[in-house]
């Protein structure tokens, strides 16, 4: 296994594209190094992207934020302005693993690991985040909901790297939230994860809403109908029930030791309501 740590995205993309064997991007390594050690992966080349400035920086851009794909969860939590604008995204990222894992794990890694249960991905989807991807043929943008295709399968071609995520500007009275169901209080993988992002007008009517769900299908989902059910309402009980029904309808979960199809589908509805209420409370104060 070779190790490279280039300082530009272009050099990193070239190295990954030129490798004839398996080549992997190393960000925080909290999934990659476990998979290498357990021989699920045996890459010929590992390209560490943490010496590339864009991947390690949170910056304000066009009124919104650009978050480097390799910024650690603990660093996101310490970014006061980001946390104020996107509390749900930051809390989702901070549910990944332990304090120690938080010191390394990243949004880019959480997405590219390709797990349907990744905590930060529904929050990125609800936020309307766009991934900025650099490959051997240049840069392109892709909505986060379109990056993952199926477990461990991404819409990235050979040599492509997610460099950063762009989160759009927040108007007044906008906020987000993330909740997951796990059978304990810490250090577990979501049975269902749900993120809601809301924008209200001055009268408290919802003018925009996005709902992201995790662990209920082969990939994290944007549930457009759940968002639509909230728009134009005061996010009252009737609207919440409609959004929950849309969330349940979007579920195509598996049965496994963490939860049955019926349980996951039901919990997706319950979490959609609860998460929307937290986002609503925050948006009223924002």
């Amino acid at each position, binding site marked *: 296994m070779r190790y490279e*740590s280039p300082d530009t995205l272009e050099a990193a993309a070239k190295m990954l594209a030129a490798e004839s064997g398996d080549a992997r991007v190393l960000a925080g390594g909290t999934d990659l190094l476990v998979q290498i050690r357990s021989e699920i992966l045996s890459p010929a080349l590992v390209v*560490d992207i943490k010496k590339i400035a864009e991947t390690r920086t949170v910056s304000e851009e066009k009124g919104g934020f650009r978050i480097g794909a390799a910024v650690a969860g603990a660093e996101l939590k310490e970014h006061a302005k980001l946390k104020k604008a996107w509390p749900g995204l930051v809390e989702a990222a901070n549910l990944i*693993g*332990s*304090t120690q894992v938080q010191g390394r794990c990243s949004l880019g890694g959480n997405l590219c690991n390709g797990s349907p249960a990744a905590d930060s991905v529904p929050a990125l989807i609800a936020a309307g985040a766009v991934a900025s991807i650099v490959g051997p043929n240049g840069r392109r943008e892709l909505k986060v909901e379109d990056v993952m295709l199926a477990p461990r399968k991404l819409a990235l071609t050979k040599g492509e790297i997610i460099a950063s995520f762009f989160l759009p500007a927040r108007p007044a009275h906008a906020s987000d939230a993330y909740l997951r169901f796990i059978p304990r209080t*810490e*250090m577990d993988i979501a049975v269902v994860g749900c993120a809601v992002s809301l924008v209200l007008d001055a009268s408290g009517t919802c003018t925009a809403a996005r709902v992201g769900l995790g662990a209920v299908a082969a990939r994290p989902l944007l549930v457009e109908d759940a968002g639509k059910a909230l728009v134009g309402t005061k996010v009252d009980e009737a609207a919440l029930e409609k959004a929950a029904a849309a969330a349940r309808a979007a579920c195509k979960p598996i049965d496994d030791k963490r939860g049955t199809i019926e349980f996951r589908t039901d919990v997706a509805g319950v979490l959609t309501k609860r998460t929307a209420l937290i986002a609503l409370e925050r948006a009223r104060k924002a």
Partner: protein
Amino acid sequence: MKHHVTTTVNGDEVEFLCSTEQTLLDCLRDELDLTGAKEGCGSGDCGACSVLVDGRLVCSCLVLGVEVSGKKIETIEGMAKGDELHPLQRKFLEHAALQCGICTPGVLVAAKSLLEKNPDPTETEVRYWLAGNLCRCTGYDKIIRAVMDAAAEMRGA
């Protein structure tokens, strides 16, 4: 191929050779003879290998040795100043907050990092911060009490 890594461990500049596959934990234990950090799970679940890299608490089993070139590493070996134990170490002894001791270096390193960020944590904050440090002997209560007591002493309370 071996990598030549120069880094700082507990304030001392050190260098070592490692292969790409060697983790920081392997390098500390096998190349630098610093065996305080333990290997429990090797997958980032147990925290027995906890160290600080540039002030950030991490599992050294989930860091490659070659990644720490030019970084600042802090391990359990740097915690006591000569014969003088750190207050956390002293309180762990007073409260008998260890039995077999395998998890103890990781718990101490993690707890020290918490108290540097938050000198006055609630019990809940301590429990969540240490959720990634598994102990199979003590049942955690003594560990939590020792950390709370050390925090109080360090605040001068």
